[in-house]
């Protein structure tokens, strides 16, 4: 492992008591959502992680606590090292503070989190839906949100489908 990456990981692990996972040479730290802003700021100011490469989430439904992992991919241009943070967010009232003030480009990524996963972003400056229409109901990338398709109408389910689509016969 790169020396600088090692010191950064050790400093964060010591300060915040977090677990580390390694897979295929990529390191992830499992952090609590309340500490995310603080850890990001430390990594940016003291360890040179000046770029937020990517921000997304993963839904582990039906697991409920934690149900979501919010994944932050941090990168340091100077040292060419990457570090991933995974914030563990519970399924009931999922919320996480915004890291907009540390990485300004988190703004749209966090809007996407709200739009796609329904994770409330606390302190966000402009929390509106971004990809789905403003009046959309539900959060499509959640695992309990069905991947929509047209059900084929046979004689055994003809009435049931008719009921769902009254406008077809109007």
């Amino acid at each position, binding site marked *: 492992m790169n020396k600088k990456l090692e010191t950064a990981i050790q400093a964060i692990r010591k300060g915040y008591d977090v677990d580390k996972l390694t897979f295929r040479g*990529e390191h992830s730290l499992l952090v609590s959502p309340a500490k995310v802003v603080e850890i990001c700021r430390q990594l940016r100011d003291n360890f040179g992680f000046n*770029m937020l*490469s990517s921000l997304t989430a993963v839904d582990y439904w039906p697991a409920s606590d934690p149900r979501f992992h919010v994944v932050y*991919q941090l990168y340091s241009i100077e040292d060419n090292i*990457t570090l991933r943070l995974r914030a563990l967010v519970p399924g009931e009232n999922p919320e996480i503070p915004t890291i907009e003030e540390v990485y300004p480009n988190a703004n749209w990524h966090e809007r996407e989190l709200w739009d796609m996963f329904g994770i409330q972003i606390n302190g966000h*400056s*402009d929390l509106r839906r*971004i*990809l*789905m229409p403003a009046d959309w109901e539900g959060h499509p990338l959640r695992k309990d949100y069905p991947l929509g398709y047209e059900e084929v109408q046979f004689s055994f389910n003809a009435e049931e489908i008719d009921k769902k689509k009254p406008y077809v016969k109007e």
Partner: protein
Amino acid sequence: MVQLQEVTFDELKHLVSDRALTGETMLLNMGPQHPSTHGVLRLMLELDGETIVNCVPDIGFLHTGVEKNMEAKRYEQAEVMTDRLDYLNTIGNNLAYCLAVEKLVELDVPPRAQVIRVILTELQRIASHLIWLGTQSLDLAAMSMFLYCFRERETILDIFESVSGQRMMTTYIRPGGLWRDVSGEFVQLVQDFLEYFPKRIEQYEGLLTKNPLFIDRTKSIGVISAEDAIARGFTGPSLRGSGVAYDNRKVRPYSGYEEYDFEVPTATEGDVFSRYRVRMDEFWQSLRIIEQGLEKLKELDGAPVRSSNRKFVPPPRSEIGTSMEALIHHFKLWTDGYNAPKGYVYFPVESPRGELGVYLESDGSNKPYRVHWRTPSFVHLQALPILSKGHLIADLVAIIGSVDIVLGDSDR
């Protein structure tokens, strides 16, 4: 049945200045059908006369739910959708996805396939930059450039057609190598292109680089400093235009890019002209890489282009008739696919627009549990308000062109 809901002024109040509330400045919609927004992008502009006070981009018109769809497909099926994301960088999207899958399941790629991958992605980079050059010039009223660029791009698409049968949606790069070896005419076609294209770049430069009209419209427009650009997540030519030589092909090489001799062009001003300069220089670097790739290809004539790991890559047709094991592998791969080990990887590649990252997570089954595309257009569009503040509407058109957005890329 669809109830249209009105977006109230209160919901947008925090996005505009107080002067808009008193009617001192004007709110104007640009797009989503405006020819200069390069796709279906809508911008809400707050204008003081012709000067932009605020710019609020609205995206999502081209959202197709690709990430959700990929979760329901097996690894090799999901690849078909990658072409449709950034439709000007189809080969590059295939490559990013395949590299992520290969990293996840630890699959080897034979050297010949690596070289062909590099040649094709560099051709794709040139094709994508040609579209950018054509549309950017068209926006700045250089009509003929658009026609020239599309003419040149067509020769590249012909090469893609000869190798894969498709001009755009190729799905030619597959996990573990390529769909099949290149056609016999491939080398000749690429060589012809290498001979013919340098003269064309010189012609374009002659038409634009010293053209006072072009310079007036591009110098000191849409300036962003290196620090701001990094904080905003800029990558690719847009970041290199601000003087940061960050290129994934150099810092995190993949597909054997470390063996190629090429430079990372940069410019210092951070304006529209700098980004133009960087992309024009990248034409030459891509040509250099392709030339070296052809040299390497000569030595690897007849070498395999697919991994021999039968657990992930189907056997060749000739083997299926004689080997029971090959038949079983074939059947298994095309009915059930393969299971990837539980874990997650992030693989960034250098697309023509910047860093294209694929986050791929597996739960141990034969379908990806989560795929996230970190797309450069999404990140660059976000910075449009900073780039355009204080400029005229006419300059906004130049700025949108200069960050080279593709809406299919940003909306996914």
